[in-house]
């Protein structure tokens, strides 16, 4: 069997992290092609439903990217995202997902390298964790 290639769904905020991801590109930072980016206006617009659905549908990991604390372009969206995720993680654990499959990361528009490193590290961590157990359910 070929090596397991994790699939990550990322929700990036329009202002900081998406721009940071673009900067990773313009500066040619290389990272694994594991990630699929969905662009939203703010990390505070990431509904827990999206995260859950991504995992249930078989994504191996979910990345939420937002502006650094104090830098959210809508004042407090990132804090809301942080609080929401803390609660969601409790639920995920109970559902049998490892909470580590979901990562919230503050990445600014100037942190292209950090974006690339985050994806690289997350991909490697997921490889160690193995595929999303949900997938087996679908395939059973």
């Amino acid at each position, binding site marked *: 069997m070929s090596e397991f290639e994790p699939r990550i769904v990322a929700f990036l905020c329009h202002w900081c992290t998406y721009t940071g991801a673009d900067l990773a590109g313009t*500066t040619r930072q290389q990272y694994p092609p594991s990630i699929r980016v969905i662009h939203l206006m*703010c990390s505070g617009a990431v509904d827990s439903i999206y995260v859950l659905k991504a995992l249930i549908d078989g994504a191996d990991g979910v990345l939420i990217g937002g502006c650094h604390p104090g830098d959210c372009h*809508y004042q407090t969206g990132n804090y809301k995202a942080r609080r929401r995720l803390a609660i969601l993680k409790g639920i995920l654990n109970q559902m049998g997902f490892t909470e580590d499959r979901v990562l919230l990361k503050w990445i*600014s528009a100037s942190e292209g390298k950090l974006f690339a490193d985050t994806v690289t590290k997350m991909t490697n961590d997921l490889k160690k964790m193995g595929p999303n157990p949900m997938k087996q359910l679908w395939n059973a």
Partner: protein
Amino acid sequence: MAQGKMRGDKSSALVIGAGIAGMQSALLLAEMGRKVFLLEQGPAIGGYFPLLDKTFPTNSCGVCFMSPTPPAFCPIYECHLHDNIELLPYSEVKKVEGTGGDFRVSIVRKPRFVDPKRCTLCEACIKVCPVEVEREFGGGLEKRKAIYLPYPQAIPHSLVIDPRTCTRCGECVKACAPGAIDLDMKEEEEEIGAGAILLGFGFEPFLAQKKGEYGFGRYENVLTSVQFERLISTSSPTQGFPVRVSDGKKMEKIAFIQCVGSRDPSCGQDHCSTICCMYATKQAMIAKERASGLNVTFFYMDIRPMGKDYERYYERAKSEYGIEYIRSAISSVKELQQTKNLFITYLKEDGIFEEREFDSVILSVGFTPPQNIKDIAGGMGLLLNQQGFCQTDEFHPAQTSVEGIFVGGAFRGPRDIPETVVEGSSAAAAAASFLAPNASSPSRKEYPMEGALGEEIPKIGVFICHCGEELKKSLSLFDLILGTKLLREVVHIEEVGLACLPEDLDLIKKRIGEHGLNRIVIAGCSHREIRKPMEEMAKGMGFNPYLIEYANIREQCAFVHRDLPELATEKAMVLIRMAVERARRIQPIRKGSQKVEKRGLVVGGGVAGMTASLRLAEQGYEVCLIEKERELGGNLRDSFYTLRGSNPQSLLQDLIQKVKNHPSIRPYFETEIIGFEKRNGHYKTKILRPDGEESLEHGALILATGGREVVPKEYLYGKDPRVITQRQLEKMIHLKDEGLKEVRSAVMIQCVGSRDEEHPYCSRICCGHAVKNALKLKEQNHSAQVYVLYRDVRTYGFYETYYHEARGKGIVFIRYDLEKKPEVALENGRLSVSVFDPAMGSRVSLPADRLILSAGVEPNDNRDLAKIFDVDLNPDGFFMEANPKSAPLDSVDRGKFFCGLCHSPNFIEDSISQGNASAARAGALLSKEAVEEKAYLANVIKRLCCGCGLCVTVCPYGARALNEEEVKAEVMESLCQGCGNCVVACRNGASQQRNFDKALNLAVLDAAID
């Protein structure tokens, strides 16, 4: 470029210097509808700001809040995007002709040797370039080639060849596939016409080599603060992890030496550079966060965190971060040969020498005016001050010595970012007033009516752009096209070469017509790059621009998976599939707009409020000025002379006259605010006048409610008539009080009602006032002995020179600690003050014929007003800004601003700048006929709404309300910023966001995973 033809006219503005101040001025004037030329001598705009990724006092970046139309990108990018701003990077002013109101400026555009339109940033040239030199960005710690990108996010985003180091070997020309390099490019001359010129020249760091005794340039591990800033930035080669220069080992024990090239007449720098205490403290904090266990020691004379919230920051640095501050003078810095560690000998306050070893030493360098400034100033006829910065009148801080030329920011002297933002805005206000008679007629583009797209079945056209063959290196376009064909509702697929250029745009336009396309997907570069030309094209043909989707297969795919063509192609296919899925579901957006009520309401008739009113009125808006007292003037009425020697009373008379005589300003006296309502697009304020109530409608609100001197609670104040405040002393001096003639000995105590438990902030102005009054007292009464008991002397900026003068005139400064406060005793009818003198190591007793308390500044009680206007107060009772760094005078809600003492303790000069600045920011809003709503507005599906009100609580902009009758939530469109936070808050799916509704996002998610 055709020579001899002048661009710009009397109504336009030329901003020289694209740092923070210049960018701020440009953005505001552009928002006011002026044509702005933004000239920068470097190859990229931004000034020093791109070096900083975290700034004090928030330790975040936050600079995006600077835009007058939030939410926005970084100002560098916003300047680049703005329709009314034309960037003139890599240009220099050659000659300024004409006079204020009608300048003709000859400029030289230096050759880049790279055509930005053709360069795809593949960097093949960089690889082959044989010349390696120190990169200027970050103080020379890193290397670059002779052909280089100034810094990663540089705007213009294009390479440039440095002619000083390029050997013209031609290797790059050979390597460049698109043929973008031309080594024979020549400089071009051009003439710009402008009614006003704004200067944002900024500063330069002091050359640390000039203080040779600290070893910079000789000892490897001695860095400047500019270099250290770069080292700890997340975009540095070590990603912000601080390592030693000599061996790359982790830093363990570092020292900051303060005031290098500041407060030091021996190197021609007698001023205080104002911000070094704070930036160094920030660097220390960030470094400690990055490298746990790092030990940081500061060697300093006085610590000067005198800006809003800076004192708390400094206290946190000590208590939370454990940073050590040692008041001392450096005696020597020596390098240890084996370890390359540094050995510092220093003299402590008590006269004892001590030594310590560090692995790295950072020199907190001060700031000087730009090097070539004398020539530039000479060419414009500009007066500079003694230190070489721009000379301005104390009460006209934005005005240079030449009519029609304005200034803001660090070219007036070193200052922090908030002040620079304020002054950049202030210069814009002054320029706007000056330009007002030359109404601009910004070329409004007319677009054809849009067809009724959206309701029909989607017919999607997908255009895959290979970016001048660049993307083909890692993507198989063949496979992408094949895959796209299978997607539903896609009726046309085509490969294009450079979708951003006119030929391809025309082609796309043609295809839209031919195939009746009603949705477009562009697969290529990031939407941030291509959106503008695409939308222009769409609008030009009556195609709703919100029906264009973008699949980012360049920055977020081809460029980042260069060596994995198969997987990259697979990913690109998914990205296209997701974009098509979005395209199937998006709807056209026709942005609404709200008429602007072109009237400003200013609350408070002190210096800030009057200044703001005048600037607004001069721009052509009506102003209602509300004052609770019977007369205008506020605190200015009690101010009689300034440290710099100006006369506040004549300023007072001047302002009052102008306000009273201006036909567009309506002052209301003895008037209170009793109500406030938000309407869609404007505000309605209810006031109570002595003769009854009235309602005022207005588009902007400026709060300038002032502050007051703290009433001291200690040191026998109020119990003994000889104990007075600085303000009382000022009045006595002004009235030439007889009693002062008999004074043999006067003692001043600083920080009374500042930096203590009740007022944990620094009041900024008291040190300056003490020096001012001490000097005046001496002037009137030579034989008087004056003692100033202080904690830190905070005579920042050019005030430092007066402190120096005061010491020269025999005024004695004795330091005290909060733990050992001075004690006042009354013996046999005589007052005396006893204080522990750290230099002597013992207590001294000082007779005090007068005891003058430097009482701090506190805001007036604004609690009721804050509630009425729905704005926040900080813990100290000052109004709270949207962002302390880059939106220091704005409230979170659009159209509300603060200035003067209700914002923070200020000198008169600062209040004037803030008054100006708030008027510029309000003016930018009022200048529009109508405010455009945001595109991605929230909406409510009434049928599903249960009226729980969660969305109302969540909205940061007050754009949501509960309709009490229907028990349903509503959105005030003019206030909604489109963040989508309320969508998440809703449990019923009643709250949705245009083109980001839940069903759409879930569908895209499906497309992402399958």
